[in-house]
């Protein structure tokens, strides 16, 4: 066993290499939440050109839906994992049909303001009915406990989080980048009129895409419910970081959002070991540097 140290100029703190493996793994797990959320944002921005500021609120809705399903209809975690994203996704479809569709021709700012306003309303309503302290939600029985990996204790639930989110991320990437449906989607953002001329219902496709992006946020919310506090402000605390992740990855880049999400989780995890006070700021420092060096983001194409 050897020790790994920071340069003296950064504090010179040392930790055993085994502990570092643990921290890297933890970082990767937290990164999977960033990846899931930034993926949804990237899909929505890429296809609709809407900066979806209500994404955090929709993540919160996912967690609340899981709680309510359990309380009032006895649906367990596994059912909620399917049902909650569908329910929240349907609200997304309604939002797109009733509100967002009128904004595509206008400046980005209008979509941003509308979704930001929606986020405030959703949060306020949740706070009014459920209070700000939070709601209880426990880890499903089949995933309780954990295993000792030698260098760390890995809770089973965290192992599940990383597997599930990596699978969902990969599937989404695959559908959009490698299938015919994805090709239609990408074509529709490039030139909607032409795609429509081929007999494809572009507005419906756009609506479903928004619904899907929102469902992804809700899925992340259900995943978060057993380990994070389920409270109305849970989304707004996370969403700013996720926006930074999307900006670093490159707005609208699917692969960029996924890789940056996982990568920044690791960076943040390491900061928590060596300089915990800065762990909330480190992502924004990286964002500032990336914007200076590559304004379109790490994986983004120049518009």
């Amino acid at each position, binding site marked *: 066993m050897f020790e790994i140290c920071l340069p003296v100029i950064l504090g010179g703190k040392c930790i055993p290499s085994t502990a570092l493996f643990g921290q890297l793994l933890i970082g990767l797990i937290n990164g999977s939440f960033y990846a899931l959320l930034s993926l949804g944002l990237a899909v929505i921005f890429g296809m609709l050109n809407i900066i979806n500021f209500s994404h955090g609120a929709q993540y919160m809705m996912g967690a609340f839906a899981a709680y309510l399903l359990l309380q009032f209809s006895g649906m367990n975690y596994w059912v909620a994992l399917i049902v909650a994203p569908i329910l929240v996704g349907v609200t997304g479809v309604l939002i797109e049909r009733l509100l967002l569709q009128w904004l595509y021709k206008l400046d980005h700012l209008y979509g941003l303001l509308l979704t930001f306003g929606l986020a405030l309303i959703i949060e306020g309503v949740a706070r009014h009915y459920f209070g700000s302290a939070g709601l209880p939600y426990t880890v499903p029985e089949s995933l309780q406990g954990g295993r000792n990996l030698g260098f760390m204790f890995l809770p089973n639930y965290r192992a599940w989080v990383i597997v599930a989110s990596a699978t969902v991320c990969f599937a989404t990437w695959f559908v959009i980048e490698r299938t015919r449906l994805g090709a239609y989607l990408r074509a529709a953002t490039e030139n909607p009129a032409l795609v429509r001329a081929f007999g494809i219902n572009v507005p419906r496709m756009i609506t479903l895409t928004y619904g899907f992006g929102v469902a992804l946020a809700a899925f992340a919310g259900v995943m978060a419910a057993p380990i*994070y506090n389920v409270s109305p402000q849970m989304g707004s*605390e996370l969403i700013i970081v996720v926006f930074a992740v999307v900006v670093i990855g490159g707005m609208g880049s699917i692969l960029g959002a996924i890789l940056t999400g996982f990568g920044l989780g690791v960076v943040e995890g390491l900061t928590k070991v060596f300089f915990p006070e800065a762990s909330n700021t480190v992502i924004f420092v990286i964002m500032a540097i990336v914007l200076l060096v590559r304004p379109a983001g790490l994986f983004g194409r120049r518009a």
Partner: protein
Amino acid sequence: MKKVLGMAALAAVLGCGVANAQQIDVKIGVLSDMSSLYADIGGPGSVAAAKLAIADFAKTNPNVKVELISGDHQNKPDVGSQIANQWFDVDKVDMIIDTPNSGVALAVSQIASQKNKLFIVSGAAASTLTGEKCNANTIHWTYDTWMLANGTGKAMVKTGGDTWFFLTADYAFGHALETDTIAVVEKNGGKVLGKVRHPLNTNDFSSFLLQAQSSKAKVIGLANAGGDTINSIKQAAEFGIVKGGQSLAGLLVFASDVNALGLATAQGLALTETWYWDQNDANRAWTKRWQAERNAPGKFPTMIHAGVYSGILHYLKARAAMGGSPDGKAVTAKMKEMPTDDPLFGKGSIRADGRKIHPAYLYEVKKPADSKYPGDFYNVRATIPANEAFRPLSEGKCPLVSG
């Protein structure tokens, strides 16, 4: 002629009587976090508690007319200061109460002192409010960081938890709580093995918990509050911290936090509070009234709400006793001179440094099987008598005391 004189005399006597019971106008402002993190431990619940206090006082003192207003400081000291200035200068508020968030409370305390008004703190925790930053216009009512550290910290060390690792929220409150707890731990023969300062509103504590786990400390002290405490405890359960033999010390845990965690996760947690809704009949009766006033049958009042009620009652008693003068320093002095007595905190007193004195209680969160009805959260493990619950007057470095 005699008859007329008699009538005049009678009128004079009656007039005199009316003059004695002259109307006293009081204006109170509840300054709290109405819409965020602390809205459940203070917020609208504090307004409901204030209304109950005013209604109860009016039963025996119909000549005191109280107007109540409330405001949202959004946990920002600048917003809180602006509201306090406006209330004192423009709206002629005599007294501000509650104010969770130590940063905001310290700012408002200075303003109350400059403008010679009165500030009763129920929601904020920093013990500096009656220590180095004390003044003659501030009373700290319900609890403080020293009392929390002394209650939970001492109990943990005494029962064998003599090595500690701290997870501390990186701002004024967290630092104060950490400092106060370290002092208690070391004084009782314990040792601090390490600490991590985490930013306020951290979502994931697993990295910090791994560090705490590898420190092999017997106790992990949580010098944080609200969502941070909930996330730490929830994730500590997930990482098998308690099963692995380490214990958690929640240094500031409210009933609403226990509710958010669920008893399955929170069971066995030791915590210190000065008031618990289910402790006796008086508290339970008051809780019913509070729930009706708040229009929230499923919610339970916290010690902060109880403190708002008790503080306003005592304040109004002092105002009535003084015949209505709103002078901040004079009323504060009168409040310190009069013994306190109310249905929720019983008999107590206010010290020269502005510290309200009453007993504190060490609670333990019940097992889910032992909890018989909603809100049945705690067993009482120990009572800390009033004279031991708070920092001794001589140790606070309050300028009002030394000079």
